[in-house]
């Protein structure tokens, strides 16, 4: 590429600041590995544990529109809050989220999930009960499994009825790390 890094950055910054993007994304470093973070004008839309943009461009375009571009300013506030969270200086995120495309049930579950406090755990069954479907623990598990915004929507705080960690999109070791960071595991 003969386009200099500086020129490249200037274009990407301008595209974001003029509000021309359907979705902007960037890679954010964290103690649990690099994350790909994507945001729209409505708010934070995706966090992927796989930070390779090539793996996500088409899917982002299908979900939000073709104007997909990597641009640091698009995710500045998310990056800052994630940094603070991982440094133990933040126990709640103050971010709008864009959950368009989520089915009504999934949205209900994710809304409830967002209320599970820092440093505490709950179970799939409890969460199911809170959305008025006490026998839908398995369906809640599926929603957790497809959580578009892990960490910020804290599916790592949801464990099995017997206290086992069960599963996690980023790997069980990451789930354990996050719960330790929050002091929920000793």
């Amino acid at each position, binding site marked *: 590429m003969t386009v200099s890094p500086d020129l490249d950055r200037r*274009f990407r910054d301008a595209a974001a600041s003029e509000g021309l*993007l359907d979705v902007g994304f960037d890679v954010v470093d964290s103690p649990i590995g690099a994350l790909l973070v994507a945001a729209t004008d409505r708010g934070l839309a995706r966090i992927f544990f796989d930070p390779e943009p090539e793996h996500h*461009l088409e899917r982002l375009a299908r979900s939000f529109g*073709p104007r997909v571009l990597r641009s640091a300013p698009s995710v500045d506030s998310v990056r800052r809050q994630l940094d603070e969270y991982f440094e133990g200086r933040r126990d709640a995120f103050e971010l709008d989220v864009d959950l368009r495309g989520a089915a009504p049930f999934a949205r209900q579950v994710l809304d409830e999930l967002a209320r599970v406090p820092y440093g505490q755990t709950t179970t799939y069954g409890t969460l199911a009960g809170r959305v008025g479907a006490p026998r839908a623990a398995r369906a809640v598990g599926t929603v957790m499994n497809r959580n578009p915004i892990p960490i910020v929507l804290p599916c790592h705080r949801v464990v099995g009825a017997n206290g086992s960690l069960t599963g996690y999109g980023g790997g069980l070791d990451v789930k354990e790390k996050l719960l330790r960071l929050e002091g929920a595991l000793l």
Partner: protein
Amino acid sequence: MEAVAAIPPFERFYVEHGDVVLGFLRKRLGRQAAEDAFQETFLRALRAYDRLEHGEHLRAWVLTIAARLVIDTGRRARPVAHELPELPVEDGRPAYAQIEHLAGDLPPTERAALVLRYAYDLSYADIADALGSSPEAARQAASSGVRRLRNERTHDRLA
């Protein structure tokens, strides 16, 4: 039915054509002015991007936007073919739309070559750069486009 190329995510479009656009602008404007024009070219492309109907010939499309900017930057084009109508100039409209308007059903390469030559006054060497062909092929594409246009008009008058 022919398969139509899907519109790629903008990131991929930008990475794929960025170098060619910058090279083209440097030749026309020099290094410094080319950088400003580069940013503006892709911002214009971005503004029009969600109105594209398919992902065909995106390089020719973005180069016509760049060529428009070269003119806007102050290098006035001198229309060469007086028999062809002036192109309408409307800001914010994809440059490709001007080609469609003028040349209707011409094959894409002829259409692009013709517009770059007559509307933007590019040399055949520059058009060859833009379309990834040789100057001779660019000249042939433009002239066969003109021939085809003339024939179509004659038919229209007779019909």
